[in-house]
């Protein structure tokens, strides 16, 4: 009995000690933070104290730690981020002549709890490009190494100045979106993790076209701001304390997450809603209050869709922040349980940008947060696959041809938009999507990472069929959630599931597909080149010629339609430069179409996929009439000058 009491006491004590970090963890809680931070809105500065409890996930002895100091990307024009980006992101520019536009972070002290002072040992280093002016990564040698499975507790003091928002984080007037803001430990990849053959730190500098990579953990963060500010953050609010100096301190806690961001503004209009187990908090700009329903419906559509087709959203809440127009550089960004959307006053209902951004950023709760891939090295795994799901949700919610734009007769679907962005590049073969993100050709990052991936994922869906595609994605999700999957892990699941289920229709694996669309730069374009009929006895001898114009080789079907109404489907492995099918039938071929089901969505020209002996001139006549009409109207408008 006494033994039992001691045992219980031990368990309770242990629970009390580790409770802040490990309650019912679904993830390997490797990097756990307790942070107290104070925001001074006047100076745009943060003052923080951070306690990091980091566990060595490997069997290695760790002799140094590595950290990200992301805010130093905005320190001056010499950082790698600024050199690569030219001081802009997504069309938003830094006000380069203003000192106040820049930002930085300083580690004031770093100590091992009850141990070594690491502060003098902090070294900046540049693992990616050797740019010695870049201060976004530090390493800290340890006198006392961290053994396998051991934890180390560090007490860190830091101060930071937020940049004026142009690239996700910072301030704009009295709006604050605080992301990538604290000293954040890198990811130590034990051998066997992703591509690591030996244990190694994976800590990259902050680049213009790359996002982030982090381990899971518990974040317990207290934020102090002036009391008139509304504050929301990653995770769930634990409490609020009013301080005597006119400030307040709000505490948030998030478990099983890879990052922590927060926002503060005195102007938010807060709208709350609920979807099943998920509380939704929407922080809108007053001028956008009337668009609340648009955001909420989009968020709920995304929640329901992912829940049905991929897996359960495991968190109890979701916060959606609508940044003001003057802080649009903060729009369209994802953090765990916390996303930023983006809209504008007067945005017509038929232009669904607010919906698209909300759905896209929510999708990152899966592709980045729950499946914590390395965004530095394999952006296609989060942005690209998420773009694919954005297309599915948008098109199935708002219409395949109208989901993004349905306004004044103009119509555009989400998948159409992704495909257009990739296939109509000046050179779609410019580069594979698979590369370190910062090494992709500069202006092609978006097209190659988001659009091309979404388009070949849609093509993969076409080849596998929707049910099998969903099975692949669900397996991928269930197997890799709360872990760090790589591209090869995703492909391994495709290869594990699909060949057998498709009766090896595409061979023993799908590597031929990924070698072309992901690791390669092949371009897909099939053309139904010609149809000819000639009489042969009582029958017709018809030839149907298909060309492969691109260098990508994909299996395709050819649908042949005869004048007696009958149809025939022909198979082609798509490897040769051309293929001629000869058919002897009672009827003549009226038309034929290569890839009639648009399986190969990655085909760069879908207009040349069909050939009809006779086509109607009506579409041409229609657009000629319109063309004539608008030319004449242009003349009439000019006449007013005469």
């Amino acid at each position, binding site marked *: 009995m006494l033994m039992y009491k001691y045992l219980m006491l031990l368990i309770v004590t242990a629970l009390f000690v580790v409770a802040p970090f490990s309650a019912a963890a679904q993830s390997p809680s490797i990097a756990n933070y307790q942070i107290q931070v104070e925001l001074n809105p006047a100076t745009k500065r943060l003052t923080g104290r951070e306690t990091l409890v980091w566990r060595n996930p490997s069997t290695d002895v760790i002799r140094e730690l590595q950290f990200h100091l992301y805010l130093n990307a905005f320190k001056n024009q010499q950082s790698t981020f600024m050199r690569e980006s030219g001081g802009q992101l997504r069309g938003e520019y830094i006000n380069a002549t203003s000192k106040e536009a820049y930002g930085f972070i300083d580690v004031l002290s770093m100590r091992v709890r009850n141990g070594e002072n690491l502060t003098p040992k902090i070294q900046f280093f540049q693992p990616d490009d050797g740019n010695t002016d870049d201060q976004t990564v530090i390493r800290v040698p340890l006198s006392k190494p961290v053994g396998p499975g051991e934890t180390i507790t560090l007490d860190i003091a830091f101060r930071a100045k937020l940049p004026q928002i142009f690239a996700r984080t910072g301030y704009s007037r009295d709006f604050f979106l605080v992301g990538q803001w604290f000293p954040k430990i890198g990811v130590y990849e034990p051998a066997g993790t992703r591509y690591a053959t030996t244990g190694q730190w994976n800590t990259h500098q902050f680049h213009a076209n790359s996002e982030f990579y982090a381990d899971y953990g518990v974040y317990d963060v207290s934020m102090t701001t002036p009391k008139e500010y509304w504050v929301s953050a990653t995770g769930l609010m634990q409490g609020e304390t009013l301080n005597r100096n006119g400030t307040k301190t709000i505490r948030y806690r998030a478990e099983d997450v890879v990052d922590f961001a927060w926002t503060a503004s005195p102007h938010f209009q807060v709208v709350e809603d609920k979807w099943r187990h998920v509380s939704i908090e929407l922080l809108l700009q007053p001028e956008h209050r009337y668009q609340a329903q648009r955001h909420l419906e989009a968020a709920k559509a995304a929640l329901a869709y992912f829940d049905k087709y991929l897996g359960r959203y495991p968190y109890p809440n979701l916060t959606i922040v609508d940044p003001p127009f*003057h802080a649009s550089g903060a729009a369209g960004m994802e953090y765990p349980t916390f996303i930023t959307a983006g809209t504008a*006053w007067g945005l017509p209902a038929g232009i669904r940008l607010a919906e698209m951004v909300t759905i896209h950023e929510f999708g990152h709760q899966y592709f980045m947060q729950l499946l914590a891939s390395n965004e530095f090295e394999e952006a296609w795994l989060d942005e690209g696959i998420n773009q694919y799901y954005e297309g599915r949700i948008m098109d199935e919610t708002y219409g395949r041809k109208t989901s993004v734009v349905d306004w004044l007769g*103009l119509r555009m679907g989400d998948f159409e938009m992704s495909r257009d962005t990739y296939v109509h590049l000046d050179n779609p073969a410019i580069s594979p999507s698979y590369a370190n993100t910062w090494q992709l050709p500069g202006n092609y990052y978006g097209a190659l990472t988001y659009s091309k991936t979404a388009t070949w994922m849609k093509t993969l869906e076409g080849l596998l069929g929707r049910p099998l595609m969903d099975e692949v994605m669900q397996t991928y999700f269930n197997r890799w959630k709360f872990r760090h999957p790589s591209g090869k892990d995703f492909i391994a699941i495709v290869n594990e599931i699909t060949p057998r289920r498709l009766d090896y229709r595409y061979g023993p694996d799908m590597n031929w597909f990924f070698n072309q669309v992901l690791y390669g730069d092949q371009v897909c374009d099939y053309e139904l080149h010609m149809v000819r009929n000639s009489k042969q006895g009582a029958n017709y001898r018809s030839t149907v010629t298909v060309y492969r114009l691109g260098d990508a080789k994909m299996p395709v079907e050819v649908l042949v339609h005869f004048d007696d109404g009958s149809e025939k489907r022909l198979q082609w492995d798509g490897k040769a430069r051309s293929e001629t099918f000869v058919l002897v039938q009672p009827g003549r071929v009226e038309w034929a179409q290569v890839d009639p089901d648009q399986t190969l969505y990655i085909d760069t020209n879908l207009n040349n996929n*069909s050939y009809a002996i006779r*086509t109607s001139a009506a579409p041409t006549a229609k657009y000629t009439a*319109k063309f004539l009409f608008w030319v004449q109207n*242009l*003349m009439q408008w000019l006449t007013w000058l005469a």
Partner: protein
Amino acid sequence: MSFLMQSLRITWHSRRMVLVIYLISLVLGLLVALPFYGAVRAETDHSLAFDALLDGFDYTVFTDFMQEKGNAISPLLSVGRWASVVYLLLSVFFTGGILMRFAEPHRPVILGAFWQACSHYFRRYVGLFALSTGVVLLLAFVWLIVCTLFILAFADALSERELFGIGLSCFLAFALMVTLVLCIGDYAKVDMLRRDERNALRAFRRASALVFRHLVWTYGLYWVLLLMGAGLFALYFTIESAVGMSNWTTILLMLLIQQVFIAGRIGLKVATLGVSWQVYDQRMPLPAVYAGPSTIETPSHTTDETRTNEPLTNEPARPASNLDTTKKTTE
């Protein structure tokens, strides 16, 4: 409103003239549209994909087409722009003929006289066109700078809606100024013909004085005609959405409606000049000074100073006898 009705009535009775102008616009349009048809038909070749366009705009079909065949289409768009410039110059050319028609509303439309008047006044109207276009461009430049500076100065203090409101206000103010210049330009045209004036600047100044003095009758009516044009557009879009263009029958029907619409716009433009003539004639009556095209000769000039110093009277509308006098000289 009687000016407007009278002007519309004369325009209606000048259908031959309107038809000629319309046919010229059609021929110019067809110069671009027929090659467009040929090029698109050739480029769409044997594809079935374009059938999707009958049901409305299809983004994928359109963007694939422009990517592959854009090179064949863009020269035609350029030709379209040049055809519009040619038509603009032709419109300058037509001005004399149109105004002459309003000077002689009771005479039957004689195309020979129309062409003669067009060519007689062309040079002076080119000068006026250059002047009013220059003023418009100058206004655009100055206004763009003013608005940009204003918005930049207050951007930090204004909400999105307020910024939008300011942007819209700037645009509307610009539109008002430009239409005012164009309206003055129309009265200057009348002035040049009525006074046989060759100096565009003087005519513009006199026209400005007239327009500002009778803002409602001049600029107000000008806007009524602009709104009628906008109404025509609203009507057109309503019909288009109701009819659609999804088969040969509706395509041909819409083609017909489109062409009627264009003819209507031409008629409206003619009527606008007609209103200017009517208002000018009533608000700034002059002795018969111009000679008809058949005996075109410059009247003995009073000095320009004399003319500009001539009081702008508010005498009642010039009796028909004035035009009758003209008629006599032309007969």
